């Protein structure tokens, strides 16, 4: 499908709106981010490289991006299940559950972090049962994963839900009448429809998790090389008045997040095209 710019549109003034959009985008996004990069240039290349590759920084990238990715995967699966249940079944209290999904959006992250820590620490409701099994959640990297999964959930549910709602049951019935078994229907009919939305949701959950600070800080334990996330390392640098070092780490996160977001967009675009082509 080619993009046609000259199409008559309901909103007049393409030039004006584009100008406004660019201005707004610059003001809110581009200027602060370029400030970040300008500040980093006060470091020499060696200093920059040293700051962003020291062992503590490397360990923190691994934890931040690794746990965010895992969290997004977990949410991809369970979030879809939640969305499915909310769309396809009617049960008492459904609208309450539906509203509860948004809570991680609204809750101050510090509150989430403190609540999760209280529950998962060795004297907490859940933690006291997990501890005898040798499973420590609070103050370990596992705790980071729990917190990131918590804050990422609504992103997946809220992107998958509308697509599921639009998905006609008739299509599935048609598949059945054409002789498809349940697995075939799921794989060939439902998944291709959901896939782009699911990817978007997971990408958003991932991006949100990478930047998360408030909730993780309480549950992580913050041990160097073990359970330190990159945002904490940035805070640590700031506490030492090392502004340039902090922005250097910020730039690394920015670049990695941007590349990942771009990749996800490309995958989406590619899968969307393949889907419409077939």
């Amino acid at each position, binding site marked *: 499908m080619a993009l046609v710019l000259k199409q008559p549109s309901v909103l007049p003034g393409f030039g004006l709106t584009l100008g406004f959009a660019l201005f707004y985008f610059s003001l809110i996004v581009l200027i602060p981010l370029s400030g970040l990069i300008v500040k980093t240039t006060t470091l020499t290349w060696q200093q920059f490289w040293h700051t962003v590759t*020291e*062992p*503590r920084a490397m360990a923190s990238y691994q934890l931040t991006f690794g746990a965010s990715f895992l969290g997004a995967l977990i949410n991809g699966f369970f979030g879809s299940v939640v969305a499915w249940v909310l769309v396809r079944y009617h049960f008492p209290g459904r609208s309450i559950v539906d509203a509860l999904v948004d809570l991680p959006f609204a809750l101050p992250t510090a509150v989430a972090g403190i609540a999760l*820590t*209280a529950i998962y*620490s*060795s*004297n*907490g409701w859940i933690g006291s049962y997990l501890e005898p099994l040798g499973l420590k959640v*609070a*103050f370990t990297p596992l705790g980071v994963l729990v917190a990131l999964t918590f804050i990422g959930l609504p992103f997946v549910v809220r992107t998958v839900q509308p697509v599921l709602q639009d998905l006609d049951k008739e299509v599935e019935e048609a598949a059945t009448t054409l002789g498809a078994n349940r697995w075939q229907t799921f794989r060939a009919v439902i998944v291709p429809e959901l896939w782009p939305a699911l990817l978007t949701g997971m990408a958003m959950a991932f991006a949100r998790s990478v930047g998360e600070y408030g909730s993780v*800080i*309480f549950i992580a*334990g*913050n*041990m*160097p*090389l*073990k359970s330190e996330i990159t945002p*904490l390392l940035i*805070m*640590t640098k*700031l*506490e*030492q*008045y*090392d502004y340039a*070092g902090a922005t250097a780490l910020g730039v690394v996160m920015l670049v990695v997040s941007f590349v990942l977001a771009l990749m996800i967009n490309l995958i989406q675009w590619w899968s969307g095209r393949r889907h419409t082509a077939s």
Partner: protein
Amino acid sequence: MILKPFVLTLALLTGALGFTSSIQAAESISILNVSYDPTRELYQEFNAAFAKHWQAKTGQTVKILQSHGGSSKQARAVIDGLEADVVTLALAYDIDAISEKAGLLPANWQSRLPNNSAPYSSTITFLVRKGNPKGIKDWNDLVKPGVSVITPNPKTSGVARWNYLAAWGYALKQFGGDEAKAQDFVWRLFKNVPVLDSGARGATTTFVERGIGDVLINWENEILLSTKGSGKDKFEIVVPPISILAEPTVSVVDKIVDKRGTRLVAQAYLEYLYSEEGQEIAGKNNYRPQLPAVAAKYAANFPAVERFTLQEFFGNWQKAHKAHFADGASFDQIYLQSPK
């Protein structure tokens, strides 16, 4: 049409702002005290006392705003433009930073008030679980295998730096000034630390609420506070025979008070901390008073501790920071040299 409500709000806002500021200029003056976390209760009480004193003395109503947070975070806020008339922070290093990075006060600020600009002092003590099951009495009990120690992260917390230096100074005293042995001692201590919270209150929460650790190292005033009320039956205070003399320091922020025209009241505010009433309030809020008469009155609350000074072992904060808390310094080496 859409703009109308905006214009209206704007008009109302500017009107309201103009109105309040004109009132303030007329009869009262306000100053902002930027402080660190555990002084909240202390300054609430002190501010009320000072306002009364100032009113009686000059007839002027003074409104004191307080801001609390992690000590270096607060210093950073001032550097970045928070208009603090006075700063009352956990360590001199943070006020040094304001002088050095933003030039808001002269480098010799610490010599302008008595006792190195520390109107009250404190020290570092231990909190253990009721009955002291691990038998902790002194610093060398903290490095024993199987003892779990809670202290915040010295990279992000003011008190954690005092804790760290207290342990290091203790070891230097024990081992006759042998730096290598002191380092080994502190490393062994930190091998016993399962969680590094980012601030003092966070560490207290981990120990008190989460039930983690056998001993908490913290400000004496925080520890005294946590044994009041419900904590009385669950915890015990252990005061080690030797600890560090912790001096939370205060200063007027020159450039700000000159700009706002508040120097007189800000100066008087800090000086009043040294007065008998100020010292009394400090003592009541678990800070050790400097004034001998008041100190004697509260002596029962504060067990005798041999307190060594920062200067004795570390020279000054700049040197201590460089040797221990800068990137790659002794604290980082604990984790870098022997990753678990």
